[in-house]
Each structure stands twice: as C-alpha cells, then as structure tokens.
C-alpha cells in the first residue's frame, strides 16, 4: 500500500475513534443527538412523500396528512386526558391501597401462624412503601436536573433536527469522501443497511406498541376494568421491550386488580385481554412488522435483551436488537469474503 494511503487509513480511524470518544464523554450532547436521529429516521418516509413527486401528488399527501392529524387529535387528547385522570386517581388512592395491602398481609400472617405455628417477622408492605417514598424523594431531588436537561433538549433537538433534515446530505457526502478507497464500498453499503434497518425497526416497534396499547385499552374498557387508559398505555410502552415487556406490562394491571374491592373485577378477563393482545402481537403484528426487519433467532433476541439491559438499562434493551442485526450483517459479509479467499 502507498505511504499516503496508509496515512489516510490511519487518520480516518483516528477520526472515527475520536467521534466515539466524544460521544461517550459528552452524553448530554449525544443523547439529544441520538433522539433527533431517531425522529429523523421515523419521519423520513413521510418527508420523502411530502417533498418529492409531482406538485399535485404532494398537495394531496399534505392535505391527507392535515386531515389525518385533525381526526387523530381529538382521540389523542381524549386518551391523554384519561391517562392523566387515571394517574391522578391512582396516586390519590395510594394510602388506601397501602392500608388494604397491610390488612391482607396481616390476615396472611395470622393464617401462617395458625396453620404452621410460624411467626412471620417481615413487613414487606412497609418496606416497599418506604422504598417508593425514598425513590419519590430521590426523584424530587432530580427535578432541577431534569428541568435543565429538558430545556437543553428543547434547544438542542430542533437544532439537530434542522441539521438532519437540511444539512445531513452535504455533511454525509463530506464524511463519505474521507473513507479510504479500499473499504469504501463495503463501509458505505453496511452503513446504509444499518440506517435502513434501524429506521424500519424503530417505526415497526412504534406501530407495534400503538396497536398493542390500543387493543389492551379497548379490552379493559369492555371489561369495565379500572384505569383502562393508563394500563393500556403502560402495556404499549413496555411492549417495546422484546419478550420481557409484555410480562412487565401485566404487573400493574394485576396489582390494580388484586388491590381493588370491586367484586365485579375479573382478573381472569383482564389476563385474557393481555393474553389475546400478546397473541395477536406474536402471531400477526410481530412477524409482519418487526421480524422481517431484524431477522434474528428468538433465542438470540432474548439473550441480546438481557445483555442490552446489563449494558445500558432500558435504552440498551430497546436498541440492542438493531445493533445485533447489524453485526449479523457485518459477520455475514466478512464470512463471505473469507470463503472466497479460501
């Protein structure tokens, strides 16, 4: 290899490592940047529809979008209003729920003592309530930080979005021109595939969560189960986590059912709603939307989610999947190249 090609190669990798180092050192910039990138990828298909094609077609799509937003706004506001009301009711009833739980646990302690002669000396309810209170105080302490981050994001996200929508093509071309010739084709194709997969995965998960959340809310409304909107919302959000999410989403619904005095509440019915919603998701929505995008073995997905959780918490659990799909592509490419050389 020529000397100046070697220098170009080394400089490029130093540049890449510096970017990674910068991203890790300044998460306050990296996080809103990443968020803006996700929003950009999610809205890209819509942007293409609205900015290309004949003028008549663009006007039609734009009118259709405005009409869709107007129709969607009312139920969205209604849903958010209901979620807010549900949350308010749930928090106001917390002391009452604590007392009920204490009573139930006391009955259980008496039963254990009478049946087995063993005195239970633990107070799990008080322990959990104290935990919740202390985390509440901790969260209160975090409010100033949260507010400053919020205002930072309010400033940075629109700026980054402007960059992605209007400047990224030019910036991307400059960045691509710096890639050494010997790896350009492969690097460019892999990077494009990762971009496509990541965007498709985010859109697919968003649609999946919306379908599941709506399904659970409607099911719980039919059963006259308490807090249907907030429980549906939680089920939708937690469903973003593959495999573990549906179970986590079920816990609040189960808790509400167990603590309620209402004799008409059907835990079985609620479980059926969650089961049917998750079956529809597993049999219909997931294979049609997500599976095609990531194309990974379920076993690898579960293991990746666990590893992602350990590495980066909830965010790691969500985003590890497209990264694994990308590494699969990368290894396939390397393997193909090696097999030709052998």
């Amino acid at each position, binding site marked *: 290899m020529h000397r100046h090609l070697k220098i170009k190669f080394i400089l490029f990798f130093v540049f890449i490592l510096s970017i990674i180092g910068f991203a890790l050192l300044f998460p306050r910039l990296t996080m809103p940047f990443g968020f803006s990138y996700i929003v950009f990828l999610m809205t890209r298909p819509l942007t293409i529809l609205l900015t290309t094609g004949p003028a008549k077609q663009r006007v039609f799509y734009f009118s259709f979008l405005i009409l869709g937003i107007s129709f969607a706004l009312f139920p969205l506001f209604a849903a958010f209003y209901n979620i807010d009301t549900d949350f308010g009711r749930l928090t106001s009833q917390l002391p009452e729920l604590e007392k009920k739980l204490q009573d139930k646990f006391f009955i259980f302690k008496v039963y254990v003592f009478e049946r087995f002669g063993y005195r239970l000396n633990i107070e799990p309810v008080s322990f959990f309530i104290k935990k919740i209170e202390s985390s509440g105080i901790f969260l209160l302490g975090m409010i100033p930080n949260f507010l400053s981050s919020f205002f930072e994001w309010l400033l940075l996200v629109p700026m980054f979005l402007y960059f992605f929508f209007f400047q990224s093509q030019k910036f991307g071309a400059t960045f691509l021109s710096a890639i050494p*010739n*010997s790896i350009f084709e492969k690097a460019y194709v892999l990077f494009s595939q990762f971009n496509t997969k990541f965007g498709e995965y985010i859109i697919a998960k968003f649609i999946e969560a919306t379908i599941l959340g709506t399904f659970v809310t409607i099911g719980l409304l039919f059963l006259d189960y308490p807090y249907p909107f907030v429980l549906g919302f939680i089920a939708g959000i937690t469903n973003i986590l593959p495999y573990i999410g549906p179970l986590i989403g079920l816990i609040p619904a189960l808790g509400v059912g167990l603590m309620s005095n209402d004799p008409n509440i059907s835990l079985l019915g609620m479980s059926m709603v969650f089961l049917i919603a998750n079956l529809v998701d597993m049999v219909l929505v997931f294979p049609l939307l997500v599976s095609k995008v990531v194309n990974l073995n379920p076993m690898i997905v579960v293991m990746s989610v666990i590893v992602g959780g350990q590495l980066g918490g909830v965010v790691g659990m969500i985003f590890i999947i497209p990264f694994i799909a990308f590494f699969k592509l990368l290894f396939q490419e390397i393997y193909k190249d090696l097999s030709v050389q052998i």
Partner: protein
Amino acid sequence: MSYEKEIMNKVQNGESLPDKLDLPVLKYLWEASPLYFGKKENYHEFFKKISVLSSFSDNEIRIFTKFLHRREFIADEVIFNQGDSGYGFYFIFEGSVDIYANHLNSNIEEKGEFIIRLDRRQYFGEMGLLEDFNRRSATVVAHENTVLLGIFKPDLENMLEIYPVIGAKFLRETALIMANRMGQLTKEIMALKRKLKEVEQRI
C-alpha cells in the same frame, strides 16, 4: 436538438446568431472556454456525452448526479480486486484504468493478465449494481491518477424511492449495457467454437 447544438450549427453554417445574448448562451460560452476552471467539476457536460445516459434530459442528469460519489485514486492504486464483493458501478471522469483477470484456478493474490485499458467516459462494474451477491470478475487498477464517479446499491434504492422515473430509466440503461455485453460474449463464444472446430478438423 439542444440549444447548444442549435447555436453550434448556426455558427458552423455561418448563420446569424440571436440578437441579444441571453443567460443560457452566456453560460454555454463561459463553460465552453478553455480557460473555464469549473469545467473539471462539470458532471453535467460529462454525462451528456456518455451514450448510456443519452435518453436522460438535462434535469434528469442534474438529479442523477446528486446520487454519485466522487472517488479519487492515485496511479497503481487498486480500485477493486477480482473476487471482492461488488456493490457499485463506476464512470471514469478523469484518467484511465487497467483491467486484469486471473484464470479460475490461479492465485487470487496475483493481479492477473492484462485485459484492457478503459479511458475517460467509459464505465465498469455494472454487474455489482444489479446482482444480489456480486463477486468482481476482474481486478481494476488506476493506470494514472484517476477520478471515478460511482453509484452504489443504496444510492440506486434511494433513487428508485425518491425519483422512481429516473431510477427506472437508469436501470433500463444498465440492463441495456448488460445485454450488449452478453451479445458480445455470445459472438466471441461462437467465434471460439468455430475456431475450435477448425483446429479439431485439422488434427
């Protein structure tokens, strides 16, 4: 007939030119000047003279060039090796390239036998754009300092998504190149078969 051709014909035939110089004429004269430094970067003029894109209008060429990548190679630099995964189609914008090919069983590390030299406005690698798992069938090396304009699979996909008409047109032209090459290959195989028969008859 394009405006430039019309003006050229008028100049050659000694006919009178339009009375007042409008902007397109001014631009054309400016770009036609040998002292025009921007000429090197004038992709539009370059593609207008490439037969593959002859059916493209000026605006279509302008859009098409947005999807291209400019890659610069120094003399003797390998552009790609025989057996590499192929994803792109290259036009020679400046300089020239040499094409080498190995026999099937020879060492892949060797450059192989010299086949042909391609010059400015010629192109190579179109199979990489169309095939799913393409392997480069020859090694391409820059003969001198060379500038290539490449279009790759993701660009073609983007073009088909954003400008489907131009994407389809370009695909048709690429398919035509392949068809022409196939035609040439068939002719060569036929000629070889004929020669083989003659040799067999002599023996």
